């Protein structure tokens, strides 16, 4: 039979103060560093590297699907040539992109077929946007689907970082300017006349 634990009043107070101190310290540490730790952990889990697969030319079918995904992501009628050039250059020049683009298109086509379409490029704009939302790469993905993706489909985080984010950045530096009312975007030869006149589309 175990003996009851006996503590003097002094020892009890000492233990209580120590416990309270630990609890306070712990709470402070969580408050102070918990956010950073959590985001560090999340970053480590959701920020996978691109991989080291070889560069190479991109099949035209993949380019078409990527351009269709771009239209779906941007959600408005845009000139797409510079996006196609962008995808081709990345696949041809930087390791990992060609394989990633291929896997992305396979995933999109699979989702399109599940939705009854022949492939992703063959879908209309509404359906493309729905598929992109469904697979959770549009940034509006819910927490639950992100956790599911974290466990089952880590590639989605690669798609988000190396495809979606880059497409949107390119949009912000090109078509975004035209939608704002500029005649064309920086990076195109705009001549030395138009900037001296009132914006024609403003």
């Amino acid at each position, binding site marked *: 039979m175990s003996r009851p634990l006996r503590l003097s009043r002094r020892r009890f107070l000492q233990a209580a103060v120590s416990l309270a101190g630990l609890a306070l310290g712990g709470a402070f540490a969580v408050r102070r560093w918990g956010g950073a730790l959590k985001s560090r952990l999340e970053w480590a889990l959701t920020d996978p590297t691109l991989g080291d697969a070889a560069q190479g030319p991109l099949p035209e079918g993949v380019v078409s699907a990527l351009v269709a995904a771009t239209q779906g992501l941007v959600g408005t009628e845009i000139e797409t040539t510079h996006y196609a050039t*962008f995808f081709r250059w990345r696949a041809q020049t930087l390791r990992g992109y060609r394989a990633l683009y291929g896997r992305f298109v396979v995933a999109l086509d699979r989702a399109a077929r599940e939705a009854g379409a022949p492939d992703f490029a063959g879908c209309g704009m509404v359906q493309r946007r729905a598929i992109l939302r469904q697979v959770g790469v549009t940034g509006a993905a819910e927490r639950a689907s992100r956790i599911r993706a974290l466990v089952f489909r880590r590639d989605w985080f690669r798609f988000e970082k190396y495809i979606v*984010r880059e497409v949107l*950045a390119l949009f*912000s*530096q090109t078509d*975004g300017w035209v939608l704002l009312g500029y005649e064309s*975007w920086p990076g*195109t030869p705009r001549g030395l006349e138009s900037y*001296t006149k009132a*914006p024609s589309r403003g």
Partner: protein
Amino acid sequence: MKPALAIVGSGIVGAAIAHTLSRRGYRVDVFEKGPEYPYPHAKQFSERIQFMYENPLYEASKDIDTVTVSGDYVWHPERERHLVVGGSATQWSAITLRMRPADFRTKSRYGYGEDWPLSYEDLEPYYCKGEAHLGVSGTDADNPFAPRRSRPFPLPPFELSYHDRLLADTLRPRGIRLHTTPQARTRIPYEERAGCQNFGVCKFCPIGARYSPTYHLLDALKTGRCQLHHDVSVRRLVMDKSGRGRALVYQPNDGSKEREHAADVIVLAAGTVESVRLLLLSTVGGNPGIGSAGDHVGRHFTFHHLWAGGCHYRLPVYPNRFGGFTAQSHQFLDHPSRGKRGALKVEVGSQTPFHEGRVTKWGSESEIMEQLRPRLHWRRIILSAESHPSAEKYVRLSEKRDRFGDPYAHIHYRSSDFDHENERFALEVFNLLAEASGSDERVFSQDTGLLYSGGHHMGGCRMGRNVRDSVVDQYGRLHGSSNVFVTGGCTFVGSSGAVNPTLTMVALALRTAEFIGDQLS
């Protein structure tokens, strides 16, 4: 056989000297710490702007490109330069202004700083040569504050933008003048360079319209008398006991064996901080630090002090329709209270941060548009203040060492009372402009207390009359040495007033090159 020169640094100053002297028949070896950097910069333009790719090949490794800092300067000075063939001016803004006559005489005119050992009149012919060398587009016709010139600008000016003109019209009745900006961009084709087509991302001009030193470096290489050694670090100068430079010691960055390169003339054109560092790393007669007999190497150092402000307007002002620089005001360079305060330059900028080819973490197209739309209503105003050296601004060797075991440079920088007075003046002028132009909201970076050098590092090897007051003479020749020259912004006596220093650096470099050529012949 003609004498041989060794130039440390392939930037705008080194390239100008290499170009001038190789064409005069001298053998020139140029040593560059950074990697090759293709010209015209079409490849860099494509990579950065079209493909949003920052090529690591053009980034110097941190263990050869670090500057430690103390005091109240919070930025990284090594990021304010570019270690590549062609140097920092491969990516510069290309504003090319002349110092004003009074900037050479601040001590005798206003009672602060020191006077230069040469005058505006001495340098004026070389300003003309410098403008021709760089292909400067500009006019003084609309600028009543411009100093006298003996030759017109080589190229016509870039006009004010539509919205600049509206602003200028609003400000004129309130007594504030805006005018065009002289710049090393080709308004029309010039020499072998194409005319500007307004790509708008001038940092990576794909057609060479914005001047890049590589243009002249390649021309020098074509003579067959110039050789470029890139990816090598010059570690020290070898001097004989008389103080004459004998050779450079350099080492390839890949770590292969250290080598010695003999030369009849040695020119340091490695940028302000690195040139100071090399003088401090070298020895003469067993004593560390060359040119330091008067204890001036590394002292008399200063930055320009830049602040960016933003003015919001109810109607959109469409920034960035032109990539270069259009409106400025030089009205505050020689203002009535100069003396109590320094010179101040006003730039009405049109650049926005959305065009440099970096991937930003956007969430959606609508989020992008939501963030871009307000930018249409903001105008950026940059204020650049003169500063002058003080005991709390200097360059010395650092405690930390690079990959070869040599100490890095260390900058200590603390603003003086004069600088704080200039800050107040800058805010005053900014508020004046904002109110006069009808801005309904404004932000000023001074609110955060941060100053930025603009990459304008000056002094440290200042020129003067003798070893008691300076490091080099007015031609950049090291006091006590017949054949070692130090060139660039490090030889400035003050901060070039408040105007961008590069044209003055080039004018001085061309003058030094002419002097060296004449001496050798």
